[in-house]
């Protein structure tokens, strides 16, 4: 169960990240013990053009790739700009910072502590998941989305 007391932080970079940089970053993040949940935020990169005169045609995009984090394949759906993290304690943040520092030699980043993910179900969550929603899934994706969170296994 997600406790409201778990601290959260986010990694914000100066530039939007290429898929290979995202892969390197996430592999560093999962190497740090104490990260519970993670959300990749950024502008969406749809498979087909969703609106406008060219609606419906394929939208090949070099920033939408499948990356490998731990042993898991992750198909990126966004151009990653921010990584939201739920961590087990605030002590994880310095270790996290030290781990990801080498990933960004060319531009800056910062880690902010705050509250960025849902910890309680909203009305929309209630409509979608009902009264017994799995709290670990809350805040990881839009309730109206059909995609499911990816569980990174074998990293501990």
């Amino acid at each position, binding site marked *: 169960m997600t406790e409201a007391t778990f601290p959260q932080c986010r990694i914000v970079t100066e530039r939007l990240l*290429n898929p290979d940089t995202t892969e390197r970053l996430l592999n560093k993040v999962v190497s740090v013990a104490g990260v519970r949940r993670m959300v990749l935020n950024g502008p969406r990169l749809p498979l087909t053009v969703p609106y406008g005169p060219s609606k419906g045609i394929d939208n090949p995009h070099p920033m939408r790739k499948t990356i490998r984090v731990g042993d898991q394949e992750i198909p990126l759906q966004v151009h990653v700009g921010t990584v939201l993290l739920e961590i087990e304690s605030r002590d994880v943040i310095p270790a996290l910072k030290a781990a990801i520092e080498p990933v960004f030699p060319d531009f800056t980043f910062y880690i902010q502590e705050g509250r960025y993910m849902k910890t309680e179900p909203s009305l929309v969550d209630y409509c979608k998941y009902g009264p017994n929603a799995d709290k670990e899934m809350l805040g990881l994706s839009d309730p109206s989305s059909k995609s499911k969170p990816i569980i990174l296994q074998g990293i501990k």
Partner: protein
Amino acid sequence: MAYKPQYCAGQTIVAANRRKQMDPAHKLSKLRDVTDKDLVLIMGHRAPGSAYKSAHPPLSEQQEPACPIRKMVTPTDGAKAGDRVRYIQFADSMYNAPCHPYLRSYLESYRFRGIDPGTLSGRQIVECRERDLEKYAKDLVNTELFDPALVSVRGCTVHGHSLRLDENGMMFDMLQRCILDKKSGIVKYVKDQVGVPLDTEVKVGKPMDAKWIKANSTIYHSLVGTAYRDDAELIEYIQRIHSLRVKYGFMPKEA
């Protein structure tokens, strides 16, 4: 004394650039050579080489009502020929793009005839007769108003103005109309402005270097360029306008 327009207040390089771009007496420096055919491809309104479609017969062939205004105003080439009205739209990154939507509308109004500019927060559209548009688009793309990385021709799905740049220094584009060829360092359009793939790539040149970008920016940005609050003259001007607008309902009288 004859009236001399001042165009824009401010003491910083950003204000100077704005004045320079708005002043029709200043000749915009040409930085790249995108051909007419390439521009027609990027805009996607007609096939290169095809005839202009018309919305009405040429003015010389139709009876015009007796109108003193029509006698005074010389029609543009496009209006004379009865061309359709078509558009070009630009998205400008707020990370020191050399032009921005408000300024585009101002400078186009000073420099071009027969146009209908539309200004939005992160993009600007200009509509006019098709053959006039192609002429104006050349000025907008080939001169110092354009940078291949920070300015983009986008008819729709324009989101990118306020987003961080990507690692290659390009503005975000959900449809990835233009890509940076890492080997040659040249930006190529692979889709037209509404996202329909092009048969041939259109090269628009190399992105300008950081020094040029900073020296030619027309956007105030406290993190990557000149901060708005550093321009005392512009702040004074804006505060005056703001104050007068607020007081307007109370019949302001200046001392």
